[in-house]
């Protein structure tokens, strides 16, 4: 869809962009998670989480470390079952990794022995793309992400930002309907982070897929998303749910100059700080 199959997508607001689907993309009902440590003590990481993410919605989850943000993503991706409650993706109860869901970790998790090209190819292999479509599609993605010159490089010879770009390329190649991103830019320096955020918004404005983006950077959350969910820790609970009414399409950097952006960030900061 990156090739502009939907040329008008960029200037539509999300709510007007499409009719409502039969099911929300993600629905969490009373989700809770306990971990039992080696001494047998129970630690409640998540408690009664109810959350709905609509199709095409960009939702950021912020909160202090240890509030269970990452665990929540693992429940949605089907990698780890919750202790209580249910997770639905596209209306179906999640018991194993559901189709059309892509995950991006804070670590780049590339195959260290495979080239940039091969790493991106994994995404195509796993979504059943016919083999003869690999070459053009990967070429397209390399272009989009500015990785063309690095096609045959191994991850070890790339910078952290580049590696994360390759991981994003693999995710885009897999072309899920739901992107789960666990602090994907958390380990990057401020400049690279800015560039990656911009890139992500640009790509998202072409595709309009649902995104759940976990971060502890409030400016990043507000700049990117339609909704910011604030979580509290011990146990992890949803504390507040802010609708981000900043105009789309946005430029990830310029949006920060708007007074409304400052207000939203300030409100959320205060919300977290008041704990």
């Amino acid at each position, binding site marked *: 869809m990156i090739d502009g199959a939907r040329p008008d997508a960029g200037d539509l607001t999300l709510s007007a962009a499409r009719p409502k689907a039969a099911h929300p993309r993600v629905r969490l009902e009373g989700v809770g998670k306990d971990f039992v440590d080696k001494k047998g003590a129970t630690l409640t990481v998540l408690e009664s989480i109810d959350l709905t993410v609509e199709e095409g919605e960009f939702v950021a989850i912020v909160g202090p470390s240890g509030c269970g943000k990452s665990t929540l993503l693992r429940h949605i*991706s*089907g*990698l780890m079952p919750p202790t209580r409650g249910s997770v639905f993706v596209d209306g179906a109860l999640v018991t194993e*990794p559901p*189709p059309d*869901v*892509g*995950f991006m*970790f804070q*670590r780049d*998790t590339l*195959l*260290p*022995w495979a080239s940039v090209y091969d790493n991106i190819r*994994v*995404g195509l*292999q*796993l*979504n059943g793309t016919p083999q003869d479509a690999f070459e053009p599609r990967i070429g397209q993605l390399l272009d989009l992400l500015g990785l063309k010159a690095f096609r045959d490089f*191994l991850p*070890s010879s790339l910078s952290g930002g580049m590696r994360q770009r390759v991981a994003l390329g693999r995710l885009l190649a*897999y072309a899920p309907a739901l992107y*789960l991103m666990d602090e994907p830019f958390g380990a990057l320096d401020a400049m690279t982070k800015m560039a990656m955020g911009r890139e992500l918004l640009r790509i998202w404005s072409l595709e309009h897929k649902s995104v759940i983006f976990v971060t502890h950077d409030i400016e990043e959350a507000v700049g990117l998303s339609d909704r910011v969910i604030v979580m509290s820790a011990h146990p992890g609970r949803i504390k507040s749910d802010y609708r981000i009414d900043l105009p789309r399409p946005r430029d990830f950097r310029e949006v920060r100059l708007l007074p409304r952006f400052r207000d939203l960030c300030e409100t959320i900061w205060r919300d977290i700080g008041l704990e």
Partner: protein
Amino acid sequence: MSVDALSEKAEFQRRARFIWLRGLAEKTGVFLGAIALWEILARTVIDPFWMSMPSLVAERLWKLAVSGDLLYHTQATVLQAMLGLVSGLLVGVAAGVVLTRYSRAAEAMNPIIMGLYSLPRIALAPLFIIWFGIGLLSKVMMVFSFVVFIFLLNTMQGLRAVDQDLVDLMRSMRAKPGFIAWRVQFPSILPWLVNAARISVGLALIGSVLGELLGANRGLGWYVEYSGGRLDTTGVFAGLVALMVVAIALNTVVDLVERWLVPTRP
């Protein structure tokens, strides 16, 4: 790149080549010096009956090579080592994969495995001769008993060290277990297997020669034993030199295999 940088690079390369050549010259010098010292000592103060002489050893090796005996014995030793090595690799890796998959069984069998691993394998020799005779099989089994645990333990360690995030990422994209095995787990344990092979090559030669010392009618180990029995130190040293060359050759093969299979890691 500027002209300065280019000439700097050329200068750097010249310097690196010089250091390499100097190292080579020093190694050759020390080696030849040791040989010369041995020769001189044998010709002056020590009776060659005890430690022979490089010139005699070289002459013996030449004779053995010409008569075909050298090849005949080397073949036997290397064949036993290789058969044992390959069977140890296959069984060790397969068992490692199974035991990693069924961790409770692995836990239950751990004392037995560690017990057998710790047992001095040489003590098994009489049993192996009773079971497998003094032909090829007893030597191959001796080698096998030396190397199988190396591959088993390295496979288990390697599989434990596989990056779980990589596996999770593949699982989140609904990769089949076969895909994960081939694209993640197998490449992850390759360096462990090469490492196991490196240790095993030396052990395989030990096992092979040990088997020959205990009962055989050919092989480099047998030749050393036979010469020793006739107080023929020249023959003993000729056999040792041949064994050393075989060991170096096998290690070089492992190096090449490593460079081919694991090119990206230092």
